[in-house]
């Protein structure tokens, strides 16, 4: 049994200072078990300017068990899986405390973006690049932010896909049928 009132209260609190924090939490379903969190990429990092979406699942035992969080926006970071978006963060595991909230957890995730922990990696490839070739890491992370975490206009998306060699009409219909998701549209175009 989920403590609905607490989750609702958390959503209200989060909404109150969304302008100052930039962090948002929106319900995906009516029963408040699945939510979407949004965090801005921290300024002064390769993630600056991006907006990152995080899938949140509220477990039965919330807030006595930690919420499950996973990036749905692709991100290049040593502690976040570049494949699945899984996050390696202690407060989401054994350091969780019922006194924490979805917002504080998202703040921790945001802090993780500014301060990677390559010594405790989730994604070994990214971590190795971070350790051995920091400059390449920064440019890859920035490129991923540009590509996946930017809300670009429809015309920008069309332009980019047309540049790849697809027809204008074909591109527009693909974008429309994938709900504006550029990557999904690209997949559709490629699979014909």
């Amino acid at each position, binding site marked *: 049994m989920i*403590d609905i*009132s*607490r989750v609702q*209260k958390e959503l209200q609190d989060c909404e109150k200072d969304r302008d100052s924090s930039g962090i948002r939490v929106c319900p995906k379903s009516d029963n408040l078990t699945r939510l979407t969190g949004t965090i801005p990429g921290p300024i002064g990092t390769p993630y600056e300017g991006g907006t990152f979406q995080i899938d949140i699942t509220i477990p039965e*035992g919330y*807030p*006595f*068990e930690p919420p499950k969080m996973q990036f749905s926006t692709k991100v290049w970071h040593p*502690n976040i899986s570049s494949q699945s978006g*899984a996050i*390696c963060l202690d407060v989401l*595991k*054994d*350091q969780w*405390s*019922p*006194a*924490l909230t979805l917002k*504080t957890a998202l703040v921790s995730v945001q802090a993780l973006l500014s301060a990677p922990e*390559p*010594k*405790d*990696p*989730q994604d*070994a490839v990214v*971590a*190795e690049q971070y*350790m051995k070739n920091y400059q390449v890491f920064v440019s890859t992370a920035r490129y991923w932010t540009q590509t996946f975490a930017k809300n670009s206009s429809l015309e920008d998306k069309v332009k980019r896909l047309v540049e790849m060699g697809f027809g204008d009409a074909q591109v527009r219909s693909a974008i429309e049928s994938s709900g504006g998701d550029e990557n999904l549209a690209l997949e559709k175009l490629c699979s014909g």
Partner: protein
Amino acid sequence: MESGEEDGYYYTSDQESLDGLDHDQSNLQPLSSTVNSAKVITKESLLAAQREDLRRVMELLSLKEHHARTLLIHHRWDVEKLFAVLVEKGKDFLFSRAGLTLVQDHPTFSPSSMMSCDICVDDVAGHLMTRMDCGHCFCNNCWARHFAVMINEGKSKRIRCMAYKCNAICDEDVVRSLVSKTQPDLAHKFDRFLIESYVEDNKMVKWCPSTPHCGNAIRVEDDELCEVECSCGFQFCFSCSYQAHSPCSCSMWELWRKKCHDESETVNWITVHTKPCPKCYKPVEKNGGCNLVTCLCGQSFCWLCGEATGRDHTWSSISGHSCGRYQEDKEKQLERAKRDLYRYMHYHNRYKAHIDSSKLEDRLSDTILEKVSILERRQLQLKDFSWVTNGLHRLFRSRRVLSYSYPFAFYMFGEELFKDEMSAEEREIKQNLFEDQQQQLEANVEKLSQFLEEPFDQFADDKVVQIRIQVINLSVAVDTLCKKMYECIENDLLGSLQLGIHNIAPYRSNGIERASNFISSREAAGEKRQPPNSGWNSEDTSCSSRKRPRREGVYRNNQTTLLDLNLPADVIERK
């Protein structure tokens, strides 16, 4: 050389020297200081057993019982270590590390006023809130749900406060009272976890590994490297909790066991999907996340190589692990596999043969004892038949040594463990030395078995006397040979190794130590005036004159078992 040595063991048929024999036999008992005094702790005495440790800590630090328990759980019931920390680092350090906070003066709140609980964000009346010793205050409902989650996750022993980054361990009385209001079952579970911590977290206490579980635990005093027998009759190695396996070392036995069960699906699954925790050795399944895995017992380890790590395990040290490097040529491996298989079959067949023999002999023990009662009814010159039971026991004991000597030899002289430890010549010399001893032991064990199987109950007086001499002589010879084999293994074979830690439980002539029932000091004091409880066959020994009263508080298991030895009292005393 062989016959010369044998002459040394054998005695003439002269009656005087035979009487002297029993005394000599007692001198063969190991006199080393490693003799343990193991105790059986039953479900009923589990609480009493930990009381002594709790009381020591409570008295020294003037603490309540649950605070003492928190400290002891944190220090894995090692009272000496706990006291050492106290002396070196002081009381505050000791307490804060264990998450123990003693009540300070926190602002009191009126029970009728409404307060807000930070967890459920509801307003709750003051009397429905609880403040922990650390000062954090939340509503009873939230505390109870937090406790329930922790207990169900198996974290009963260290339930931390709900506040973020608060290291304090919740007061067990609060946990118990809040949980039992809504979920009495869970409160019982919590209590059981706390009480069983004395076994689970204590390196000197282990559950008897019998299946189905007899419910007992065994506590040893100083040496963890020993073999014990639980009051349920199960004999096991205290170090690794598997059946007694000396002279095989624990790691050899572990390898051998796995090798023998290779085909089992479960074992396959476990090897593929789990890794043993380097601290508590329980298989851990990785359920996602990074390669830094934390076992329920609190130990972190590297999933890639299975080595223990601290919290500060670094990525660079993961990439430094040699576990990622492929070391051998596949071709060569295949070729070797075939040779290895034949080698394994050789040792396994012999190991199995002795295990099978011992099973057959086990069944024979009833008929042999039947023969004794027939002899007793006949009016023979000879009145004492303890040599039969002694011989039988010696047979069982040495069969077991023989069977486990094969897996030992498999690993000792194989390439798996000590490839770089010995040169080929050295290995050959050592192998010959060992195999000679093994062979001698084998021959004598078979002879002993043969004599005990003879229908001596039908024999005439003089022939019975002859059999008796043979059995007694062979018993002594076999005992000496077993002892020599252990010494050879300990000193000449394992003792000279540089790498790896292979230790074997010491040989005990009188068999694996049978743990005695735990009696708390209070109970023992009450029993002082009662006569010592003696074993079932203490009457008809040839050395009753040597018996002395047993130590107080240690009383023998009164179980009627076939294999009890007629030990002189001083041996029991030394235990």
